């Protein structure tokens, strides 16, 4: 991979040398811009105990444009749809080059702790969340048990 920007090298080194608790991101051997990410479900959230696999891709323009992140593990969350796409402002218009892979992953972890049904991606989930939060949370827990526990990374 000719001309991998120094910034990506540095970020990769730092992610490995000084990992964020509950998050691991490992670059693909074939493509240093492609990361396999595991995020642990935050405690005191319906996702607690689950391990969520994500894929993260740094586009050519990175860091001038946002990385592309997608959940590979099914998750019941108002801001994440069936395909794993994430509705998060810093991945869209609020991206800033001062953000890094680690900050993005931290934000995603925070999103798991604090779902925002008022700005939904999956409207069904969001409506369920707004109508009856308790059963929605239970549903999320159920999903976590079903998909995010003891799972292998998917391809």
């Amino acid at each position, binding site marked *: 991979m000719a001309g991998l*920007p*120094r*910034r990506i090298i*540095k*970020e990769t*080194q730092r992610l490995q040398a000084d990992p964020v608790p509950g998050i691991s991101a490992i670059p693909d051997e074939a493509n240093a811009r492609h990361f396999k990410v595991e995020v642990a479900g935050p405690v005191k959230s319906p996702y607690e105990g689950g391990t969520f696999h994500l894929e993260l891709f740094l586009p050519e323009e990175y860091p001038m444009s946002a990385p592309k992140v997608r959940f590979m593990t099914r998750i019941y969350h108002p801001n994440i749809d069936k395909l794993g796409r994430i509705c998060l402002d810093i991945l869209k218009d*609020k991206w*800033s080059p*001062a953000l890094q892979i680690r900050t993005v992953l931290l934000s995603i972890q925070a999103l798991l702790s604090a779902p925002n049904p008022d700005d939904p991606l999956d409207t069904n989930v969001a409506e369920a969340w707004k109508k009856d939060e308790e059963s929605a949370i239970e549903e999320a827990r159920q999903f976590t048990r079903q998909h995010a526990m003891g799972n292998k990374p998917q391809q």
Partner: protein
Amino acid sequence: MSDSENMTYSAEHVQQLLRCSVCLDRFKQPKLLPCQHTFCLSPCIEGLVDRLTRILRCPECRADHIVPRGGPSHFPNNLTIISFLELPPLNGERPNVEAVVESRAAAQNVSSTRSSYRSQAAGRPTNRGPGLGIGGRDAGEGGGGGGGCAACRTEGRLARCSHCDQLLCESCKRAHMDMVRTDVNRLVSQVRRVLPQVTEQINTVGRKGAQLQNRCESLKSEVAEIIEKHIRDLKTRERLLAEDIDSFVLGELRGLRTHQENLEVELASMASFCDSAESTLSRTRHLTDGDLVELKRQCVENMATLRDYENGTLRPPVPRNIQLSAESQFLTSTISNFGDLIITSGSSALQASDMAGTRTSNMLGVPQRRTTMRAPETATDYALSVLSSRSSSLSPGIARRGGELQPRNARSAQVNFADEDLYEEDEEDSPPRSHPLRRAHRQTSSDSRIAGLMGGGGGSDNSNAISRQRRQNRIRRHRSLGALPSSNENSDQTESSPEREIPDRRRTRMFTLPDSDEESVGIGMAPSLTYPPRRPVRTPIRFDVSLNSPEPEEDEEGPRRSRGGAQVHVRADNSPSMYVTTPRNKYNQKGQAMIRFGERGNGERQFTWPRGVAVSPLDDFIFVSDSSNHRVQVFDNTGVYIRSFGCYGQGDGEFDCLAGITVNGLGQIIISDRYNHRIQIFDRGGNFQRAFGSEGTDDGQLNYPWGVACDNMGFIYVCDKENHRIQVFQSNGTFVRKFGRLGNGNAAGHFDNPHYVAVSSDNKVYVSDSSNHRIQVFSIYGDFLFSFGISGTLRGQMKFPRGIAIDNQGFVVVADSGNNRVQIFRADGRYYSMFGAWGSENGQFKGIEGLAILSNGNVVVSDRENHRIQIF
């Protein structure tokens, strides 16, 4: 991080602070954004700029900043960071080179080995980390070479290591060499990893070469184009001249032929008279006395007529002479020097001053003649360079000899002369008093005489002829005035004559060749072009005789007169308006409105006293402050109604007789809400964002604010009309500074009802100092630079100037409301052209107010009393 062990805690922190948050590297050319965040110039800040909107969003705080005109490199350097970066690096590390190697090594977790290895290679005794097999021990060994193996102290077969020049035993040496081998391997792989960068460099160089080639190709075609254009111009000129000569010859021939015919008639009648008289005498014996007397009288009469011919009293009309005064020498020298190639190194071009910066984009063409003009050493130099800069389009004019002045022409010439007469008398009345201003004037004239000589250098016989003709003209004029004593032909007068005569001669030309292009006036007008750049010029006594001939032509004389009185400090400036002969925006072809819309009323496309107008730089929409309808109407650039917003009131988004309006680079609309004594800001869609200001005289308080303008950094300039000052605010309404105070007359920085303000792209603030009938120009910090215009109706004079707009070449368009016309000046205040008159027809105005310039150069004029907008 390996070196963090060696570093103290604070040093590590300093290193972190010296890291750009975008590239995560040490800062390279750290630039400070207005929000106080710092990033590397390249590629971090450069990559952040939105090329379309020229806005940069800070990665840290997401504040939007407008990129300075010169590009992101014009953001200020963060000097603190730079001085930190220049600190001597710790442990002899060379920061930049090392950082690269170091981070790689860190990835392999071998750096401690490597760094001590390096110092060993350098032969310096240092403390070695335990990681290196031999290092620690060899340090203990100290002097080395004493007892046995430098590593294990075994006495045995020792061999000298060719690498580190130490005596080692067999096994230690083997281990040591293994270490060296792995190290070499590592180094090789490191080198290999850097190789792509070299490849990239190769590619870059290749690309650069291609770019350069392209640029040179386009430059060549540019050269060809320009030369082609000038050839075309010359051809056109040739045709015009030929036509002029033809028409001249036709006219002259016609005159001669008429005269010839008259003479023939005369001859015939004389001959027949002779015949009849003879026959009468011979035939009739008895002539009455009366008849005889009558015959005698007729004879005498005819005799007298013939004698007139004989004496030459009734001479045939002398055919007027015509010759070509072509300063071809100048043209030739201009051609041979035409077009310098300016070669700048890439980086210096970026960091060069504004002057060079704006020029790099246009590296070829007439403007580089400015190199000679930039710092005129003497007036002579100056004149010369003006000549050469103009001579690109210079074509020889026909000097008409003995030109008869048309009646109107004669009058103007008299008037013009009359004030110079007063000049003379003024001096004669008080000969002993050496008048400083007078001296300045004399200086001027002698300078311009020199210039004239330089200009006339093309041919001495020509200039002789010119001066002869001038003298004739002058005498003629003296006669017509009947007031000039003959003693005025003294040396003093001849001294100042070149300056005075040439305008006259120009005028003669102007009227005898009314259709000739003013640009092509020959060298003869050059002296009138010259004015001492830094010398106050005395205002000539003026006669308000309207010379406002409607044809828009460049009057080089106008500004010199108009700037009289005011102190003129023309800064060497690179605004194209100072030297282009024809602005991109064809002001002298304006005069008929292309688009007119609006009438009195309060519906769509109806106005009640429209005042300020503004054009959005983003979408070219026209914003009209419909003053007495208390609203803003928005049109597209062809006058199609888009929307309106605002109504009467004191609340947010409500107006009370709004006046000035402007749109900044972000599309925000800034409006002076006149009777509410405040400024309101709206977003692009016309939604209220904020308001600031209240009635009063303190800083940040306003008293009937009128015009508003924005500079390219987003600062807001407000004409605080009744406080007679300009106030500057940040885009959020924070007071920044104020300048100017009440004063009548022509003192610098004194205002009397400043109405409108405009900021040029080279950061000069033009204020229409309305009741002082002038435009004052300031730096953005409020330092007075110069002013132009005085009260009057002549070219370059103005009455109650109002709206100002500045085009992208720096031409200043002024709404001369008292004269109901639009005048156009160059950036230094020299008059360029004008259009408009009083009335309600197309191209006429009643109470002209705001001005704005569309992206295509069309001028939007708010015609207040006609309740309409006109676009020229």
